[in-house]
């Protein structure tokens, strides 16, 4: 009796916690509402299964609890029941997988009009690079990293001269424009993660990874590192500021290009920071 009640309470408390607890995802700030919908759908299906199984167990414990003279039934198999349960499960699984794959397809298909934005991770800070007037980012190489060129940009690449370099500062993005985030690292794995955007992807030294999204509301969002990268992993923070076009362009005007930064006079102004913040 007590055991059955406690099992029931576990099911009820879990559902109640889900419905009434204050901890839930952050308000969405990107186009990935589909991801949220898929999670909601998955919660419904799995929640129903969880409650069904636990309640059924509680019922069995209550109803078939040992009493003097009770004898268990003898039924080794029931082909039909087993068959039905398998098919039912397969349908439930397909109901979650199918929308999931459709949304994944969108996630990995970058729209043609997305602007490139480069995010570089290093122990333990973020740097950003935006293409200049030519709309293209220059090449880079970890071998070129030096105090004067902390992002390891290729000085001989004409595409890179006008790239806008943002170091030790926040990234700004215009609202409503799709961006393709190109992710790079010069030392270990990192992961550029903004909870409100829902997207994340590891950055790997030696390769460039990416994802895309469209910021859908203005505001300031915290950047965290989601892949263990050593001692100061938890302190590797930055911010993304999503703003209207006008403000964004005003900010852009004030940024400096790679060429400006690497001309001898301005080198002194660049403070290169190593180590943790």
């Amino acid at each position, binding site marked *: 009796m007590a*055991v059955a009640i406690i099992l029931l309470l576990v099911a009820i408390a*879990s559902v109640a*916690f889900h419905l009434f607890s*204050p*901890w*839930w995802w*952050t308000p969405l700030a990107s186009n*990935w509402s589909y991801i949220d919908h*898929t*999670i909601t759908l*998955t919660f419904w299906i799995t929640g129903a*299964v*969880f409650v069904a199984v636990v309640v059924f*167990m509680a019922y*069995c*414990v209550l109803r*078939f*609890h040992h009493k003097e003279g009770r004898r*268990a*039934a*003898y*039924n*080794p*198999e*029931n082909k039909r*029941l087993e068959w039905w*349960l*398998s098919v039912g*499960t*397969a349908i439930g699984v397909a109901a*979650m*997988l199918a929308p*999931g794959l459709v949304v*994944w397809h969108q*996630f990995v298909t970058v729209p043609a009009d997305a602007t490139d934005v480069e995010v570089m991770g290093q122990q*333990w800070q973020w740097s950003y690079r935006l293409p200049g007037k030519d709309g293209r980012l220059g090449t880079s190489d*970890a*071998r070129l*990293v030096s105090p004067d060129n902390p992002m390891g940009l290729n000085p001989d690449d004409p595409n890179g001269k006008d790239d806008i370099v943002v170091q030790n500062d926040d990234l700004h993005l215009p609202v409503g424009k799709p961006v393709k985030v190109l992710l790079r690292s010069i*030392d*270990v*794995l990192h*992961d550029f993660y903004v*909870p*409100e955007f*829902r997207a994340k*992807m*590891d950055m*790997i*030294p*030696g390769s460039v990874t990416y994802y895309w999204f469209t910021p859908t509301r203005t505001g*300031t969002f*915290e950047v965290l*590192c*989601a892949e*263990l*990268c*050593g001692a100061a*992993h*938890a302190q590797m923070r930055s911010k993304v500021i999503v703003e209207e076009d006008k403000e964004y362009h005003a900010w852009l005007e004030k940024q400096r290009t790679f060429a400006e930064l690497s001309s001898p006079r301005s080198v002194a102004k660049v403070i290169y920071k190593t180590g943790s913040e």
Partner: protein
Amino acid sequence: MVDVPFDTVAGIPPAEVGEVDLYHPKSWWTRYVFSQDAKVIAIQYSITAMSIGMVALVLSWLMRLQLGFPGTFSFIDPNQYLQFITMHGMIMVIYLLTALFLGGFGNYLIPLMVGARDMVFPYVNMLSYWVYLLAVVVLVSTFFVPGGPPGAGWTLYPPQAILSGTPGQDWGIILMLASLILFIIGFTMGGLNYVVTVLQARTRGMTLMRLPLTVWGIFTATVMALLAFPALLVASVMLLLDRLLGTSFFMPTLVEMGQLTKYGGGSPILFQHLFWFFGHPEVYIVALPAFGIISDLISVHARKNIFGYRMMVWAIVAIGALSFVVWAHHMYVSGMHPYFGFFFATTTLIIAIPTAIKVYTWVLTLWRGDIHLTIPMLFALAFIVTFVNGGLTGLFLGNVVVDVPLSDTMFVVAHFHMVMGIAPIMAVFGGIYHWYPKITGRMLNEVLGRFHFWVSFLGAYAIFFPMHYLGLLGMPRRYHDIGETAFVPASAHDLNAFMSVAALIVGFAQLVFLFNLVWSLFKGKEAGGNPWGAASLEWQTPETPPGHGNWGKELPIVYRWAYDYSVPGAAGDFVPQNEPPAGLLAQGAGP
């Protein structure tokens, strides 16, 4: 099943092992220390695994103290926190659960359940334990070397694991890799034994389809481990070479603290593929033995045959096979080619089907049973609750696009603790309460046992169920302190403190359990040979605890499956596997 092929049984000549084939102990040393008796080896494995498990448990308290009350404990700094999670995770998964299920339960139960006198290679079996012990000693030594244990996370991802921004990159990581290599060598020796024993040393009449599901679970898990551990072995050797000799298997051109290193041309993702080719099957290496044990506990304590035995066996084998083609679901956001996501999400969700079937057969076994709420049965119920909960959140993380926001958050930590931490531990406890009487001849104390059960089950659920929601909120894992973060409300810190208090209480209950294990050894109620009225062979031994050679003069002969409970028309509510059918004795065809 009652489809017993009587004639073939009678036709097989008795497979009797002569006395010379058993390595009887000659002294105290060979009886208790360098013993070749699988049962002694099992106990050695279990005691070692539980001892090192205690270290992992204490580490979890320290981590929870830090998470619940950040800044309060000045002796835990960020580096140490990372070292704690690494050691805690590695110990729990490999040195505790894998060793306990296969080395502990496997050694004790396989020979007894299949009706063998011992493992087929007793000497190698003994070596297996000693190499395992050495692996544990090397692992523990990392706490005492300069720089301390590795802090790269239990996944040991390069480049980070062997670079100077990570604690323990000096000695710690080298010893950790050495310890893993030793563990794998030791395990392989034991694993070959378990597999060959199940295939070759079954007693007369013990067909594969009459094996108890515990044996099926341990057997399949062992086969998987023999196929999966080599991937970890090569990954460990390669990482060791990268660290010691400066090779670049996993190391691309990179900068270490502002300095260009000599590394170049390697692939960090390659390590992840190797690691998870081992790591995913590893989840089932601890889950399948638990599945088997739970099936048997439910059947015995509900006095009912396991529902859909054949389906159960096929589900175990199907899960075992499928789990080798899902590994990259741990790498959805690793930067591998995004199209892999389609394939791995599909295979991962397909595994949910045989897994769900197992759950159905457990609950359908309860249905119309005669449920004795003994402590093993309670743990079995708790196993189902936690396993179903953790399995269902696996459907979130397996469904590639849903994984994107959740991966590397506390949601993942909550998920895997539920499904491969708490649930298997519930099976371990249930198994210990169930078989302790056979191993020692005494029952574990009932009152302490019930206390241990309720605190562990409800407490663990209270730690890990709410944790999912912190992950959903966006709290990343492996953070020693989330600090001031705009999207994290103050209430989340209270929840963290609550989970930490629950963790300490759960930890305390484990001490009660350890006390019970020792106390009952001397003061427990006498159990007799078969206190639960179980039908499988290990309960039919002539002596309790079974002597060396298990069966006295003659090996048992098996006439039926292990689940003849409440058979209509039978006198008692169970028929032992080695009880000849009534008709057979009358015909004089018996042994």
